[in-house]
């Protein structure tokens, strides 16, 4: 199945894009999506365990993802 991965700020710069579609198994977790993402050039600059959101809510690495989910990799936030 396909999930849409969003990248922001320094992570978008690291991978040279702010969005990428990834193919993952139907039983994939957030951790599996990250592992797949790490095969892309520039992904070696991501930290070992970045914050992740699924469909705009913070998620755990063990959470399952579904086809069409929006998986966002969240750099350290710096609002205010």
């Amino acid at each position, binding site marked *: 199945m396909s999930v849409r991965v*969003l990248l*922001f*700020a*320094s992570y978008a*710069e*690291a991978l040279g894009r702010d969005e990428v579609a990834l193919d993952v198994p139907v039983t994939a977790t957030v951790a599996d999506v990250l592992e797949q993402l790490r095969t892309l050039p520039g992904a070696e600059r991501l930290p070992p365990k970045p914050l992740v*959101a699924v469909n*705009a*809510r*913070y998620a755990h690495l063990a959470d399952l993802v579904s086809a069409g989910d929006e998986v*966002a990799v*969240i*750099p*350290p*936030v*710096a*609002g*205010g």
Partner: protein
Amino acid sequence: MRSALVSRPLDPAALLAEVAAMGHGATTLFVGTVRDMHEGRAVSGMEYHAYEAMAVHELNAVVAEAEARFPGAQVVCEHRTGALTLGEASVVIAAAHAHRAPAFEACRFVIEELKRRVPIWKREHYLDGTRAWVDPTASAPVASHP
């Protein structure tokens, strides 16, 4: 309660007026502004980026939690996005209550939680022409490779 992510200049006086009520004896306001120095480097401006759908949700959740944690508090918050110049407001929080302690604490709660979890990022532009993403978890800004 109300919160918003906006791309126009913020108006602190409007937020003060928004929380005014006859039952409130105390109103606190927090305004965050772009300053000219950060960790020893001369700053010329700041870009604020957000994961908009999520930032709107988290900001609203933070403001709702402030009102739940301090019953009787009325809280509003606006956060700016886009390019800001020095001295411009990036965030404004107004909190009103019958009494001053919860008014102060609700306002403080919102800015602390906002900085902890609302997905907003900022890129500093320096006077020397370089720029970098601000990483509050690092000792120094992350070099930017545009």
